[in-house]
């Protein structure tokens, strides 16, 4: 078996090594493109005191929200949270810490983390509570703040198709934060809808090259819709 075969056959194996107190970077936007089965596995494992870096925190009974039930999350680094009642309750009770981060800054922090860039400057958040305590510097007459990158002990990612080498493509807007998350984990686990053989994905269409990926697992997905909006046909 090739040293590049990243496929694992159980969710236990997929999340092996996750320990209390670790930082986990998760892909997804709202409930779209979230690694729902990897999250469910973390619920099952009961790992505690986790820090999650994720744009959102799911809803009451789906996505990262399910990790609130047994208080598995210590801290969220997110741009928008609170689509669920339990989150609010734990936040107000001081049982949960939140570090609100502008969405674009969050995406760039993950990318920078994966790319060996420890910090960058952005105008986003200058003069706001987000900029408080951060270094301010002027470039070409405009003020910017310094933001540091983020890496995780684990990254959990939802792809569409992967080959056994861990090359991944995403489907439509389920891409979102997943490619950056994939680069920023010490151990990156990708769950996908379909696993194909190396060579089946076109080299120029691969969104996440296998070099970033440690484990690949095939799952089946509920893909819950948050805001079902339709027009008359």
């Amino acid at each position, binding site marked *: 078996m090739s040293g590049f075969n990243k496929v694992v056959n159980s969710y236990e194996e997929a999340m092996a090594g996750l320990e209390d107190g670790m930082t986990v970077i998760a892909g997804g*936007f*709202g*409930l*779209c*493109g979230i690694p729902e089965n990897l999250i469910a596995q973390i619920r099952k494992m009961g790992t505690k005191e986790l820090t999650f870096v994720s*744009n959102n925190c799911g809803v009451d009974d789906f996505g990262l929200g399910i990790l609130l039930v047994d208080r598995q999350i210590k801290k969220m680094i*997110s*741009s*928008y*949270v*609170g689509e669920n009642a339990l989150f*609010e309750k734990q*936040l*107000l009770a001081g049982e949960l810490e*939140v570090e*609100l981060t*502008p*969405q*674009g*800054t*969050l*995406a*760039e922090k*993950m*990318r920078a983390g994966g790319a060996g860039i420890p910090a960058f400057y*952005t*105008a*986003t*958040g*200058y*003069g*706001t*509570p*987000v900029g408080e305590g951060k270094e301010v510097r002027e470039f070409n007459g405009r*003020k910017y703040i310094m933001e540091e990158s983020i890496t995780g002990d684990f990254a959990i990612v939802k792809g*569409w198709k992967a080959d056994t080498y861990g090359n991944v493509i995403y*489907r*439509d*807007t*389920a*891409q*979102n*934060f*997943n*490619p*950056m998350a994939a680069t920023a984990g010490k151990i990156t686990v990708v769950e996908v809808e379909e696993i194909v053989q190396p060579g089946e994905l076109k080299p120029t269409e691969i*969104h996440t090259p296998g070099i970033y990926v440690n484990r690949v697992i095939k799952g089946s997905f509920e*893909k*819950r*819709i*948050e*805001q*079902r*909006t*339709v*027009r*008359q*046909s």
Partner: protein
Amino acid sequence: MALSREQIAQRIARELEDGFYVNLGIGIPTLVANYIPEGIEVMLQSENGLLGMGPFPTEDEIDADMINAGKQTVTAATGASIFSSAESFAMIRGGHVDLTVLGAFEVDVNGNIASWMIPGKLIKGMGGAMDLVAGAENIIVTMTHASKHGESKLLTNCTLPLTGAGCIKKVLTDLAFLEIKDGAFHLKERAPGVSVEEIIEKTEGKLVVPEHVPEMTFA
């Protein structure tokens, strides 16, 4: 009379130019898409990673992997591109979006905007708003001119925590269209039947009123 939500959207739509890439915030800004003038094409950018947002899907077209930044199911327009959040905000932060429309709680004479946080209330987060106001050259803020209790939202200094500093140049309220420059609001247009006096009364920040203030007209 104060503008309706639809009239606000209609008035904003007049700021669109053919070939504009536009980001529309949640709420009233979204309605702008319904009033794009004849002969003008714009492409809607949705910050979750879609350039070229189409209409809502039909029942048959609904796809959980195809949503907009408001987490609503959408379709892709012809010629759309789909990309990561990092790429999406590279566009936004890099100033490539031609027009951003978003709501706010307060704006002030220095172009500051507060739109995401009311101390004492539960804070849900800023989402992409801070990136949008920091990245765009051309932003229209839309909001009611005053609170239900008659307190002005066009201020000398924002009282709420800011979303962005010194970045707003155009405001459309239910009463007026104003530009912000040189430390003042400049009254450009008023809603049909709304008097200059009412606008003066409901604007706490310094207001510059020209001799003639045209009334907006709606078909």
